């Protein structure tokens, strides 16, 4: 095990700059991490601003799924297993009746492109969950969604970050799955989420989580690069590639430009 690698049994400690593997880097005590009930509750509490938007978003998915001819059980199963709202809605756009193998392949591919940002999100969760054994970390990652990831990133300095992550994810799942049902049953409950500004819930929440992370203009250069590259890719390429392209560009700038750190 080299000093630079991240042993699964190690504890990662965040100092003022960057991540340090606890046992390797110094004199921090190496307590094995533990999930505390209080941290789960805290995670659920912190995701509270996202709950009303999530309910209506899930209802919108239920409505569209009903129009596309899915049974209630199929729509609910999709919410429970896929648990990624934007990709579920986009999948409904390419859904066809009857489903051919080609359509299934398209649906799977479209889901992958919409959800590609999850790869980056789970990469940034490595330091938070690294101290946990794989049999705990990998199932916990099932519950990665935008909301609990963002909250976790904001509080990643705390030892409770892993509990906050899982608590927030479970809370979102518990709300998301049953909220699919009223939209399905009532049909035209929410035909156009845009009317209620619901497509803005996630961007608003993103910004609300980003503002407290402001550390001056120099630290925000990667953010600006990410925004510009995302805009360009969105204009030139289209589709959903802009998120991953912009995020990678910003991350590279953060890694390479800040050599003095």
């Amino acid at each position, binding site marked *: 095990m080299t000093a630079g690698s991240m042993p699964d049994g190690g504890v990662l400690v965040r100092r003022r700059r960057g991540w340090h593997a606890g046992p390797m880097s110094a004199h921090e005590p190496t307590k094995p991490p533990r999930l505390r009930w209080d941290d789960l509750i805290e995670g659920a509490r912190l995701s509270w601003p996202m709950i009303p938007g999530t309910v209506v978003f899930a209802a919108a998915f239920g409505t569209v799924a009903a129009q596309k001819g899915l049974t209630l059980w199929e729509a609910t199963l999709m919410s429970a297993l896929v648990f990624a709202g934007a990709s579920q809605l986009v999948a409904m756009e390419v859904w066809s009746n009857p489903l051919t193998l080609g359509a299934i392949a398209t*649906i799977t591919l479209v889901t992958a492109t919409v959800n590609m940002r999850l790869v980056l999100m789970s990469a940034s969760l490595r330091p938070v969950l690294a101290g946990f054994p794989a049999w705990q970390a990998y199932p916990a990652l099932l519950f990665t969604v935008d909301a609990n990831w963002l909250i976790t990133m904001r509080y990643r300095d705390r030892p409770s970050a892993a509990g906050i992550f899982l608590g927030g994810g479970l809370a979102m799942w518990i709300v998301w799955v049953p909220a699919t049902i009223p939209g399905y049953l009532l049909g035209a409950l929410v035909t156009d989420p845009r009317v209620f500004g619901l497509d803005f819930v996630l961007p608003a929440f993103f910004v609300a989580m980003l503002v407290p992370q402001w550390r001056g203009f120099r630290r925000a250069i990667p*953010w600006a690069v990410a925004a510009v590259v995302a805009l360009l890719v969105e204009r030139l390429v289209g589709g959903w590639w*802009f998120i991953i392209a912009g995020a990678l560009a910003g991350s590279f700038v953060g890694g390479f430009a800040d050599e003095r750190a």
Partner: protein
Amino acid sequence: MSGPEVYPVLLAILGMTAVTYLMRVGGFWLMGRVPLTPRIRRMLDALPGAVVCATIVPLVIKNGLPAGLGLIAVVAILALRGHEFLAVFAGVGLVALARAGGF
């Protein structure tokens, strides 16, 4: 009739589930195999803000004035009151209002 109908639907749902879960664990798995040099640490550090900006900036620009107003409301309320719930709701409400007003 449920036989030939249910099977492809389930297959599609399972396909979506599989690719989504692969992405949920893929980055985590990969970072466990990459040596955590200071540079990689800085890249991981910059990642959350970069994901956020890359996601919202194109969406906001595409949605024009209502989204711009909503964003300003979110930032202003956060700066003044530090209340996330209030900020998100004011932003979303303002977007809905601006759209109802025909912007």
